[in-house]
Each structure stands twice: as structure tokens, then as C-alpha cells.
């Protein structure tokens, strides 16, 4: 049995551990170790050495991100650390598992990350719908305060940290790290230009690090077991395990922590139990709604950042959505584009105006009102809503499933036009 550090103590049928139980399984040992033996620079280096990559979707090296924060006496304070627990990417439910399954693990990870960058204030930015997680985190933060893991002079290290829970009021955009900052400032969640990066000008204009929940949950384990151990957990160059998920018409949808780099086939066929009877696998969005489709030909690729990218998609959040033979790919993509168009913040032109157009074309195709030119228009959008053309990554993300659907399922699109109806109806 491979190691599952993040989910080892999470059981579907048991409530999560309270502080005592968490401590009994080795919880907060990492914090103790850091407080007594490591300076922030050493912790930063350790995380950099571990090859931990951000689990929020973009896969940026966490150690590298931290290294950009101003340190030392001259650095501006307060500095902020934010756990991005907005998880709203359709098809994604991995952070929920960690939040509801082991809240102290996240809190410990946050305190460690805060220590590494010498943050003064930490926020958990939690999506509104996770009520159970909210209650657990609130309780756990209190427990951590009571135990002296939060507040002033944590474990005698001279390090201070305040931690708050912020729950959102909807909008997928809040997960985009700079829009998240605006939301925390009580503003409309429109994204900010980068540069300046949040590390320099973040929350309230102060240096800020935003990390995904899963990313932060890895940190205590890296501290406890070392960078080499963490790298060794993985089947690939990227360190650690990954919480993968599968949803759609498979026998056992769910989420599992596995070594980074397991194959798609293993995930779908073993862990998810294969397709439901009567359904064949037609395609997969490997890492949430804003990743490119892969198909049966890709089943043996490793689910790590590099391999998925090489196959023409992105690991994204690592939670895959299965397109089955009974579901119309055009309708599937329409559903996605409806989501993205709704969730566009309305700041930049291509996304605000382009996505609703795309959505309408797909709906027309579904209804049998499509025209041959529509496919060209869709293609045009996949080209022009690409990275760099829009203000943030929402619209480019939206185009990934569309462009790959056009690539792999063009026949389906053409049939909609040719037969003037949806062949799956």
C-alpha cells in the first residue's frame, strides 16, 4: 500500500479528528519542529526542494512562489497568507475532502506557510456552499488558538499569527487569486493585473501568498518527513501525492489520494471501477471543467503536470469528469460554456461578450438550429479567447474543453448541423 499522507486519517464514515486526536496522530509536530529548529528561509528551501507544485490548477512551484515574497526587516507588514478554499471549478471536489476530513491539517499547513513567509494574518477563503467545512474550520481555528498554535508568540518562537475564516457569497471568479483579494477587500471580485504580483501588492496592498488547500495540506508532511521523502511519494518528477477524483457515469465516482503520476486508466478502471454498464468512455476532462479533453487513446498517460500537458491538456485540479457514450459532447460543452459565461466577471471584452456567444451557438446546435459557419465561429473563439488575450485565465480555461471537443468530436458537431437535431436526443 502506498503512502497517503494527506488522507491517511480521513474516513468517510467518521467525523474528522479534533485537536487532541490530530495531535495523537502526529499533528502539529511539524509546527513544533519548525518553531524550534528552522528559520523561515530553511522552511522555504525545504518546500522548494520538495518539488511541491500548486494544486490549485496552474501547477506553479510553491517554493518558488514563496521565494518572491519580501523578507527581512525592511519587508512591509502585515503580510498575508491565504488558503484558497473556493473550490468552484465544476467537477472539482477534492478540497472538500480535505476540509471536511481533516481541518487541522490545513490549519497546520497554513501556520507553517505563514511562518515561512513571516505572514501576520492568515485567511481561509471558503466557498459559501461548504457549510460543514465552515463549522469545522471555525471550531478548529479556535482549538488552535486555545492550544497556542495561533496568536502571539506561537510555541515560544516569537512568531505571531492571526487566522480568520472568510466565507464567500458565490462567484467562481473568487477562486482566481487576485479576484479573491478583491473579494476579501469587500469589492467586486474582478481580477487584478499581474504584475504587480500578490507577493508584492496583495491583500490591502500588502505582500500576500495565496495557496490552494491541498497545496497547504502537503506542507506539514514535507516538514515531518523531508523533501526527499515527498519527492519519493511520486511516480514522476513532481513531488508528492495527489488527490484525484473521478465523476460521471463510472461505477464508483470518488476521490482518492494516490502517488502523483498514476495513469488515467488506473484511476478510471481501478479506483472508479470502470464505466457503468451500458456506457463507454468517450472522453475525459482530466482536471476539472477548464481542461482539454483527452480520449481513450490517452488512457495510459501519467496524471502529472508534464505528462498531461504533453498529451495536450492540463492536470488542473486532478479531478476528472468522464464523458460517456450516452452523453452528447455538444450538450456537455454547452453546459460548461453556460457555466463560464455566467461566471465571467464582466471585466474584459473577449470573455464577457465571447462566452455568451459561444454558449448561444452551442445551444443553437443542440436545438438543431446550427449552421456550418457556427463551427468556424466556435473555432475562432477558441483561438481568440486564448491565454494573454483575456485579462485572466477564466476564458482561456473555458476554451480548453471546447477546442478539444472540436478536435476529437467534430463528427458530433457536424451531425448536429447536418441533421438539424441532436443525435443523442
Amino acid at each position: 500500500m502506498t503512502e497517503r499522507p494527506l488522507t491517511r486519517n480521513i474516513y468517510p464514515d467518521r467525523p474528522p479528528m479534533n485537536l487532541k486526536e490530530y495531535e495523537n496522530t502526529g499533528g502539529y509536530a511539524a509546527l513544533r519542529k519548525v518553531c524550534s529548529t528552522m528559520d523561515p528561509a530553511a522552511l522555504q528551501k525545504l518546500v522548494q526542494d520538495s518539488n511541491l507544485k500548486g494544486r490549485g490548477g496552474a501547477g506553479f512551484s510553491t517554493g518558488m512562489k514563496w521565494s518572491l515574497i519580501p523578507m527581512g526587516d525592511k519587508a512591509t507588514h502585515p503580510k498575508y497568507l491565504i488558503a484558497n478554499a473556493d473550490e468552484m471549478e465544476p467537477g472539482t471536489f477534492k478540497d472538500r475532502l480535505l476540509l471536511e476530513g481533516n481541518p487541522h491539517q490545513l490549519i497546520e499547513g497554513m501556520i507553517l506557510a505563514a511562518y515561512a513567509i513571516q505572514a501576520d494574518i492568515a485567511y481561509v477563503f471558503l466557498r459559501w456552499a461548504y457549510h460543514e467545512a465552515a463549522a469545522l474550520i471555525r471550531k478548529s481555528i479556535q482549538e488552535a488558538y486555545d492550544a497556542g498554535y495561533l496568536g502571539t508568540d506561537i510555541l515560544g518562537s516569537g512568531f505571531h499569527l492571526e487566522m480568520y475564516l472568510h466565507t464567500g457569497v458565490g462567484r467562481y471568479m473568487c477562486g482566481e487569486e487576485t479576484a479573491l483579494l478583491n473579494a476579501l477587500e469587500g469589492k467586486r471580485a474582478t481580477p487584478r493585473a499581474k504584475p504587480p504580483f500578490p507577493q508584492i501588492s496583495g491583500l490591502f496592498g500588502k505582500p500576500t501568498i495565496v495557496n490552494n488547500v491541498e497545496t497547504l495540506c502537503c506542507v506539514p508532511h514535507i516538514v515531518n518527513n523531508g523533501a526527499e521523502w515527498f519527492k519519493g511519494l511520486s511516480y514522476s518528477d513532481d513531488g508528492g501525492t495527489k488527490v484525484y477524483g473521478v465523476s460521471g457515469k463510472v461505477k464508483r465516482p470518488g476521490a482518492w489520494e494516490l502517488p502523483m503520476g498514476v495513469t488515467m486508466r488506473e484511476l478510471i478502471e481501478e479506483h472508479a471501477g470502470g464505466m457503468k454498464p451500458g456506457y463507454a468512455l468517450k472522453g475525459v476532462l482530466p482536471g476539472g471543467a477548464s481542461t482539454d479533453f483527452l480520449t481513450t487513446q490517452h488512457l495510459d498517460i501519467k496524471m502529472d503536470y508534464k505528462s498531461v500537458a504533453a498529451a495536450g491538456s492540463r492536470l488542473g485540479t486532478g479531478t476528472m469528469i468522464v464523458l460517456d457514450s450516452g452523453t452528447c459532447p455538444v450538450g456537455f460543452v454547452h453546459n460548461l460554456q453556460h457555466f463560464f459565461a455566467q461566471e465571467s466577471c464582466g471585466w474584459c471584452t473577449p470573455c464577457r461578450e465571447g462566452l455568451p456567444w459561444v454558449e448561444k451557438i452551442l445551444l443553437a446546435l443542440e436545438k438543431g438550429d446550427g449552421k456550418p459557419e457556427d463551427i468556424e465561429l466556435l473555432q475562432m473563439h477558441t483561438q481568440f479567447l486564448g491565454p494573454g488575450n483575456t485579462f485572466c485565465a477564466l476564458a482561456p480555461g473555458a476554451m480548453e474543453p471546447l477546442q478539444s471537443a472540436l478536435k476529437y468530436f467534430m463528427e458530433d458537431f457536424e451531425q448536429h448541423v447536418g441533421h438539424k437535431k441532436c443525435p443523442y436526443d
Partner: protein
Amino acid sequence: MPRIYIDNVPFEVKAGRNLLEACLSLGIDLPYFCWHPAMGSIGACRQCAVKVFKDAEDTKGRIMMSCMESVKDDLRISVCDPGAKAFRAQVIEWLMTNHPHDCPVCDEGGSCHLQDVTVMTGHDYRRYQFKKRTYTNQYLGPLINHEMNRCIQCYRCVRFYRDYAGGKDLNVFSAHNHVYFGREKDGVLQSPFSGNLAEVCPTGVFTDKTLKEHYTRKWDLTNAPAICQHCSLGCNVIAGERYGQLRSIVNRYNSEVNGYFLCDKGRFGYEFVNSENRITQTLIRHRTAEAVDEPTLMSHLPNILIGHTVIGIGSPRASIENNYALMELAGRECFYQGLPDNQVFLEQKIVDILSAGAIHTPSLKEIEQADAVLILGEDIWNTAPVMALAVRQSVMKTAAAHVQEQVPLPGWHDAALKELAQESKGFLANMSVLSSPLDEIAACQAHGAPDDMARLGFQIAHLLNNTLPAVDNASAALLQDAHLISQQLLLARHPVIIAGTSAGSEALIRAAYDIAASLQSSERQAALAFVLPECNSMGLAMTGASSFEKALAIVQQNPDVTAVILENDLYRNMPADLVDSFFSKCRQVVVLDTLHNRTTEKADVLIPVATFAEGDGTFINNEGRAQRSYQVFMSPDKVLKEAFKWLFEMKVIRSAISNGHDVHPDEMLAGLERAYPQFKGIAAVVPPHEFRIHGARIPRESQRYSGRTAMQANKAVSEPKPLQDDDSPLSFTMEGYRGMPPAPLIPYFWAPGWNSGQAVNKYQQETGGALKGGDPGIRLFRDTGAQPAWFQDIPDAFTPRQGKWFLLPQYQLFGSGELSIYTKGIAALSAAPRAILSTRDAATLNMATGAAHYTVR
């Protein structure tokens, strides 16, 4: 200077700029929407895309927003790249998916930035087949019209209204493709800068409602460069006419003065020109037929001008040419300002201070660039609104400059600078009688009697310069404020002190001077700005003429006086009993004015004169900048000529000396300069009237002016001969020189591809910089480096006197203007006449809260 390559051609560009600014400054047409030269970049519209290449080898490049990239040495970009072009056209196609096809009925048509860019990008075929999104519009008051369906979501309106001008009641609502720009509910826009929405909005969402009442397309207007008539700042405007009516005022860019923006009084207050209350007839009173023609008037005038003492009463709202002509008619000693002693005294003090030249007086742009501002006793929000806007920019820019010291962000990166600066502000101390919206951004504010504010000022001066005396019996609050303010002013490199005449206190002017002069040092450039009441108050004050009371004394002694009153309703400026007694003593009263008022009623001879729109004239603003305002149109009533022309004819009658032709403004200015050295240089304010380019005049009408052959068809079948302008290089036709005129002669901003006002970028030396050839206007005060002469007499603290009231006029942006009130919308928005009491006085009177009426004996 970094060298960048644009489509493989090397250019030297200015450091610190973004690529869009660099391209526009080089004259390259690169479309944009959300960027604005005064507001910087936010990168939202994605219209300004270019290709950026890694190096000379890179042929693929990346699409980037030019407004969001700094120029860097050796940067390679392409504007013409097919990919970039296609993307820019696509952005327009996206915007057009929901934009109505209503150009023919849209007020913006023909001067529309969106039209410009649509044509520029080549988008012409609609592929979007679905229904358009529609919105409901809002009632935004009498000045601004709202048509939300035309919105292209560039966010400029809210960035101007809220971020730039500090307005509270316009914002962006909702999300995704439902974003909506307007108020939280229907209602009058509260910001006095709301009219700029019509110019910052790139399409027809926010438009000028007053124009709607007599709508005319930009191309059909006859335009001239004019000067705003409504306060002493002298904002540059473009005034447009059709069918003998003044129809619109838009901003005329002048980087030193108003930049890109006007206040609503200036923009909308033009309707007095079209008023029914205009004087249109020459009258000789006390006859059976009072209305007379010009020859009759001329034959009458010798009777009252020859053989009698003639005195002239000048006007702070009449041009310097008009005032000078009256001085010439009456003689220097017999020319009076037509203002009360106190006002003349105050303004004289200001003129003395500025002409001594020991301390610099700033332009509005310099105020914008100040890093600390102290306003001492002047309610600039109401008396000099665009100055208040400049002060706001100083406060915001200083805050940005502070954070830029920590994080080196370029100045154009608007959103990022705001995120970094958060709520921090530069230093502003606002001391005035009543509170104003400026208080909100002021670090320090106090409100009280003018003498008390002056005492605060003197204490500040004392703290800055201990050779100046301290204030006796100062209250703890005063000492504390003085300490804080002096400390902050000392931290500044470019502090500006602002004072004015509206509080009626000379002590304030002296105190402001002492502070500014104390701040001046080798490492600190202090400046001192004064606000005066009217558009030519400074010009009139510079004549050094005496007050109305002196004129009264003359008529009281001399029973044979003919008083010639120029554009001055004496009843507005002086107590009625004094004016009544003046008129009762005058033998003959000649009044030249534009609108009927209580003074014109007293005229024995009433002569109609041109407003700024019907005549040429030079006005001297609060910084001593002389600026020419050009005639927009020739009135069909021939008699409506400039006062100086009438006055010159009267002088000919009196002295029998003529120059042999109709007098024109250049001669007036030349004469003025000869006779009065304080006006030295003023004659060079504009090119001479015979100035031509390649033998051609500069046309007031665009090449697309339509209906010329038909517009008078109800009167004559053949096209009338175009009117001749003998006074300026401008013509009343569409023919003439088509290139770029010298800056003072720009009748409208228009360039190939740029029908909208955005064409201004073609007229600037660099985006947001001076106009080509230099901004118009001549500053008459010069910094001399003279040693300051200190003032020391500090007034006592204000103590109410038993049984006496201390009354101060309270200027209102909408309501106090003599002329602007003729605009219906402005009249409607003016507050009812009222008296404001201090809470202490109200308490002594046992006035109940909410009591509307109280009789004061």
C-alpha cells in the same frame, strides 16, 4: 530614451510610458477604449492589442495589451501584424454583438469613439445571429441622458465619476454580460463634474441632454475656440453653433489649464446666449419709440458724450478688450471697476502679490502635481470647481507617489496603484467657512470665521518662519492644526497654498502669502494660487482702477456725468441703495450688456453687445494667463457686436480720432500693452488677425458641414454669401486650411480616422502633453525671484458682536452664476435662496430644528 522597434522601424520613445501611449505619441493609430490619458490603464477592453516579440528572431510573438506594457529598450512590437489586427477587429465584433445599430438616431453619431474604432479595425460584417441584450435606462437629471443599451463596458464612466472626480452615485452593477453602469436608482447625478461623462463615454450612453433640445451633429456645428465665462479659471472650451443658436460646449484640451475636463456649470451654462432675455435692440429711453436703429443711436450719442464728463464702469465678466475700450473712451482716471471697495482692495492685494513675482502662482496642472495642498478660506468646490478637481488629483497622485517609492510601478498602471495605495491620501488641509465635499479627502479641515482661519494661517507661517510673529491667545485647536499643517507642508517638495476673495477677507490673502513665501526654499518650490470671482476679474483688477464708491463720489460732486456701464449689473455687486443713489445722480446712463437686468433698466441708452459666443475677447484667468476666446458665430442681428466696437465708435465720436477702419481686437491689445505695462506681452496671445496658412484661413466648419446651400432656403433661394470675419484668422465657412492650426486657433479636434474628441491625441506633442506648438495663453505674471515682503498684522479672533450679524455670501456652483442660471437644467438644480446660521446663533435665537422661517428684524 529607450529605443523600440515598431514593425521593424526603430523609434526613440519616452521612458516610463506604456506602449499605447508611445504609439499614439508617434502618431500611430492604435485603437483603445478603457485607457484614458488622464486616468491611465486598466487593461479591460483588450482593444489595444499588439504583437510583442521576444527578440529579432522571434517571428511568432505574443498578443499583448499595449496599454499594459512599459516601453523597454530594444522591445520589438508589431501593430500591423495580421494576428494582432484580427484580434482588434474581433474585439469590436464582440462589442458590436450587443451594441444597437442606432447610429442614425444616436447623439454620439459622427463624434463617436466607438465608430472611429470600428472603422479603424475594419470590422464591417455581423456574424452574431442572436438577440441583443437590452437594459432599461435611467433618469439622471436635466443635464445627462442615459441610453444603456449602447454601453461597451469600458468602465471609463465609473472610473472618471467615482475614482477621478470622487462622485458617489454612479457605479457598476451586476456581473458577466449584464454589467450595468448607472445610479443605484433613478435620480439626478450629484457630481458637478457629471457632464464629462458625455466625453469620457466612448459611445452614446451618457450624452449632453441640453444639446438634445437643439440637436446638431458635430459635423454640422460652426465652432470656435472659446473661454469659459463662468469662473476665474478660464477653462478652454469649444463652443458650437447652428441656426444662430449656441448649441454645445465641449472641452478644449489645454494641458496647463483644464486638461480633459470641465465642470457642469462651464459645460451646460451656455444657454444664456440663446436666452429670451437677451438685449437685441438699441434703445433710447424716454421717447415714444424707444427702439432705434444704429444710425439714430449714433446721431444721438454726441449729445450725451460731447461736452459732458464721461465716466466708465468696467466689468469683471467683460473681456479685457472691452474694458480697455471703455478706459480709452472715458480716460484712465475716469474708469472704475464697478465693484465695491472691499472687493477692489482684495483683488488689488492679489495683483500686487503676483506682480511682485516673489512667489510663483501655479497653473491647474501644477496644482495637480502638488504634493501637499492647503486651502485657506476659499470654497473652491463652488467658486473654482475644476481647481477642486485638480486638488483631488494632487491628493490621489501623492498617495500613489508614496507607494511607488516602495513598489516601483509605472504611473500609468492605474488599478495597481490604487490597489497598492488603498485608502491612503496625499496631504490636503481644507479650511473654509462651510464644509465641502473636499473635506472627505482632507487630512485636516476646520471651518469658521475668516479671521479665525487667517489666524490659523499666520500661526502656520510663524511655525514655518520664526521671524514672523506668533498668534496671540491662540486656542489649543488652532495651535494643534497649525502644527500638523506646518509639519506636513515642510515634508512637501511642491506645496500649493490656495486662497481667494470669496470670504471677503484680506487677512486670509496675507496669511496665505506668508505661508507660501515661508515655504519657498532651494529644495522646495512653493506656489500660491488665488481664486477670483469672474472670468476676467484678474484682467479688470490688473487695470488698477478704482472702486464703485469712488465713481459714486464723482457723480455726487459733478452733476453733469454721463456714465457708461459695461456688462455689469451693479445691483449684483453693490448694495441697492448705493446703486440707486448713483443712478439718481447721473445725468445720462449708457449701458452695454447682453441680458436685461436691474441695471439695464436704468439705462437712458441701452446697447446690446455680443456674448463670448458672438464676439472675440481676451480673458485673464486667476493665474494671470491671458487667453483669447473667439467668436463662434455672427449674430443675424448686426447690432450684436463686441462692446469694444461700440465703445470705439463712441470714442471716435468724442475725440474725432479714427483709425480708418473697424477696430479689431489685436489693435485693442496692442494699445493696452502700450498704455499699461502690466499687460506686457498680451498682444502675442494669439496670431494676428491677418494670420493665414498658405494664404488660407482656418475654417470654423468641418468639411462635412451639411445643408449650407439649403439651411436658409426659407429666406432666400440662393445660398447667402458667407460671412466675413475681419477680426481673426478663422473663417465662417468649411473652406480653408485643412492641416493642424496653431493651438490657440483650434476650432475643434478632428483628424483622419478620429471623428470623436479622441482626435485630440493627434494635436498633442505626446499623449496627455502640451498641444503642438505649446498650449494657448500667455502668462502675464512673471517670477522675479524678488525677496518676499512679509505681512504681519494678525487679526483678532472673531467675536460675535451683540445685536449684529456677520454675513458672508455663500457661493453655489449652481445658482450663484449670473449667466449660467439661464440654463434650464442649472436653474432647476439650484438650491432655493437660503441663509445658513451657525448652531451657536441658532441656539441664541431659540430656533427649533427644522424651523423653516424665522423673522430677523
